[in-house]
């Protein structure tokens, strides 16, 4: 290390001495070749020698050699201005060169999108809750009003660990866990990974991210559900987006509603639109008033309290928002994909 420092110092002095003698283009070229020549230039030889430096020292040695190279290049550049004859004044510095940026990693797009969703709800006074990914049949199904052996379970294709133990098919079991330990008013969202026994295709994967919301309070109404979710959707997709609520069925809500937003890809004008199939509407979340039976299951009096809940797939919503056609891109972790979501 010390040797290298000394050598560089010697070369620096030699360069300064030679630079004073440069008077024309020819002598400038000779100086350039002496220091930057591809085979025997002093700087080139320094880089060759770097290969033999021990690993722990390589970083510092490399920094010094690079600094010296920059010094030589800057010197030659200044001399070039002096000897040029085309009459264009030399630049002291070329400020048009690209700036230097520190590399900052890219957050995963699903995390980014989840945070956007969380922030909207945090602003509306919601708290964030979480729960385990391995669940019991009770929390995942029974407490949510899916009787054993009911065909409603078919829409929640389940990966089982043991008869009573499974990978949660939705984040809804956390609703039960929270209602068991907290008294109303409850005002929460629940983000997390969920699992289904799905054959992979462009919009289905056996694992994806969901965010669930739950409000339980005296006087909670379907009108509140509508108003709050409409605000959420406008916050996410812009003021002008059209939203519609239509009846649906989920065992744990009654009445239940599917929420559609207008297709921002084709405005409903393209019968072959891959987002909406020409209907002009894109299903975005499921929701409803909490089924009184679910409240009874957690000892909340459904005569005194009512509630509303919703759930949405983060992946599919992010696909729609960013125009991503294949869900699997989120889990391939191709850095050329991921880095589009960070500072480049």
């Amino acid at each position: 290390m010390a040797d290298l420092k000394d050598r560089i110092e010697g070369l620096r002095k030699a360069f300064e001495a030679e630079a004073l003698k440069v008077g024309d283009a020819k002598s400038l070229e000779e100086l350039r070749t002496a220091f930057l020549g591809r085979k025997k230039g002093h700087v080139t030889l320094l880089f060759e020698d770097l290969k033999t430096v021990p690993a722990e020292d390589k970083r510092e040695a490399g920094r010094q050699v690079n600094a010296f190279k920059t010094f030589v290049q800057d010197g030659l550049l200044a001399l070039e201005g002096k000897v040029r004859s085309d009459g264009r004044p030399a630049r002291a510095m070329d400020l048009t060169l690209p700036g230097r940026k520190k590399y900052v990693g890219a957050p995963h797009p699903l995390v980014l999108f989840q945070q956007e969703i969380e922030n909207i709800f945090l602003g509306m006074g919601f708290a964030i809750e979480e729960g385990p990914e391995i669940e019991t049949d009770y929390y995942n199904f029974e407490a949510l009003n899916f009787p054993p052996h009911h065909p409603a379970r078919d829409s929640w294709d389940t990966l089982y660990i043991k008869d009573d133990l499974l990978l949660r098919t939705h984040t809804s079991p956390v609703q039960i866990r929270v209602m068991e330990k907290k008294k109303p008013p409850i005002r929460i969202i629940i983000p997390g990974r969920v699992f289904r026994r799905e054959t992979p295709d462009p919009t289905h994967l056996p694992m994806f991210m969901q965010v669930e919301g739950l409000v339980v309070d005296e006087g909670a109404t379907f009108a509140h559900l509508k108003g709050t979710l409409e605000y959420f959707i406008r916050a996410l997709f812009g003021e002008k987006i059209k939203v519609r609520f239509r009846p649906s069925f989920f065992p744990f809500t009654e009445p239940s509603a599917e929420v559609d937003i207008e297709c921002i890809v084709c405005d409903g004008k393209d019968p072959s639109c891959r987002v909406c199939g020409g209907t002009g509407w894109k299903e975005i979340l499921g929701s409803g008033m909490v089924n009184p039976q679910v409240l009874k299951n957690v000892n909340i009096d459904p005569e005194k309290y009512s509630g509303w809940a919703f759930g949405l797939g983060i992946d599919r919503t992010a696909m729609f928002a960013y125009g991503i056609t294949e869900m699997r891109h989120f889990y391939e972790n191709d850095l050329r994909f991921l880095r589009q979501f960070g500072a480049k």
Partner: protein
Amino acid sequence: MKISLDWIREFVTVDIPRQELLDRLTMIGLVADTVEERDGDAVLDLETYANRPDTLGHLGVAREIGAMLGLSLNEKNWPLAELPQATTEIAEVQILSESLCPRYCGLVVRDVPVGPSPDWLERRIEAMGLRPINNVVDVSNYVLFATAQPIHTFDFGKIGGGRIVVRKAKRGETLKDLDGRTLELTTDMLVIADESRPVALAGVIGGEASGITGATRDVFIESANFDPVGIRKTAKKLGLSTDASYRFERGADVGFAPQAALMAASLLTQMGGQASRGLIDVYPKPHQPKFVRLRLRRIAELLGVDVPESFVVEVLGRLGFRVEGTHKGVWRVEAPTFRVDVGLEADLIEEVARFYGYDRIPSEFSPVRSFDLSVNRKRERLGKIRQTLLGQGFDEVINWSFADPEKEAAAGSGLRPVDIQNPISSRASVLRTTLLPGLLENAAWNLNRGLEGVHVFELGDVFYWEGDKHREELHLGLLTTGLLPGAGWTSAPAETDFYVLKGAIEALMEALRFEPVAFEDRDHPHFEPGQALALLYKGLAVGCLGALRKSLAAASAGDRTVFAAEVDLTSLFEKTPRIFQYAPVPKFPGVSRDLSFLLDRGIAYQEVGQALAKLNPSLLEGFELRDRFSGPSIPAAKVSLTVRFRFRHPQRTLVAEEVDRVEQDIVGHLRSTLNIQLREGKIDNRT
């Protein structure tokens, strides 16, 4: 479910344009697409819900349309040509398992000329996407798709003794079904048997031996009601799903069974048969009407809108509910037998809301009456970890929670993975016990696509068995290999190394204020021997980091060295970090001195720090490593360290002599404890 609009018109006279009908159906929760048009008819594909088996037939859908448009259902006659002989004189029905078969209706149609169906019937069957078979089979399918009540027809001549026994299968019994499969029956399965053997698997599929053939003369019509759970268990166990089992497992209309039998009999007699007189109807425990109290006030409380009383009564009436006012604004509502989904007031409120129109319910912001005051430290900490690691130049990834058992075994976490009973594929049949294999796959994917470096982290759960309890822990995984990002035109690209990884971990522990942390040499199955550290906080090992074993890394990264770390955040977060307090900014100048030492390569830098801590010299504020090198200018077994020592007195300016004394203490102590020699030193810097 396929729905023919022409068929719907048998039940209700709809004359609005088709697109308008589809749009309005959507808004009462029946989403349908036109799938085909044939002979002036349009066949729709209707999405149905698991709780609404009544919409699995045209009659049920017609009822919804009627309620939506304010139309009554058309009356239709089902005339019957009857024999003088009573059904009970010809056939006998006995239910031995009442809980699995609440009701069984049947009758015989004699001298049915088995042959092709009339055109109108063939068209109906074809609209359902089926091929017409013969008039008897087509009639039973007609009744099923018209009313959602499954019907079965037997060749009565093949029913031994004319006796129908509804019972559980006996041990070892088998049944050759209509599709020619031999079904192995178990004693929990319900069968329809004659006097000696099963002739059908109840509610699922008929037997071949008693099926309708060209030689059939007399037909026994079965219209029964079976327990949904029993049917579902049987069908699942045998891997069967039929139009009949699909309906029974969702719940058929127990009140409609006789009418469905008569419809089938009427059609067969119109084709030339003669029905036995009177229906056998075994119904040991008739259905008790379900009454639900409905309050106008509750409708407004749940929906947030005042729905007129007259609207409530009108809609529920059209849907088949019997509505009886008890007090002002309170009704006693009897649910029809086909609405197996209705049992609570909320169910009725949904019916009101569906037809009132979700779009007519106002939108209001949900009032905040109180805030959740619990503090979510975990999310706060995860936010800091992300922020720190992104700042250190690591990209975030999300990998599958599933893992390949072979790769799990190769990674050698030593933990017993959690198996999935019914995995999607054998290469995803366990849950991951470590985040490393996923991160290695990310390295492989990106290096194979021409990237020169991969520096990634993941936050996610791992799973394993601990005895008979499953554990789920939140982990942080980190991996770095290849060239570091961020090289520009001013600096050459640099290769990552172990210290990039360690620095990231140090930075995040600082950001979380889990300080001080300690690192200990500790071998780990993931890493090359002697190239791994354990990360400790308050004496507890919470993670490991090192250079991955070559054999583990090679498949993903070729001959590049891969550095990786895994931290158990669940355990770490159970600890409480020290509370942060600011230290006053010094009032008096300090002195810093760079001292270079020669020491044996066998001595770890950490030992120098430990020796200094033991000496605990006065005036020493801190020290840091400035340079480290080895090479030709120093002995081969030695390494040179340059350490910057910072000295300061809290109350006054230091004088050089007192710093000299402390410095000598340090040098002397390092020499005597670790045989470390001073090489050069004494460069004073005022700080």
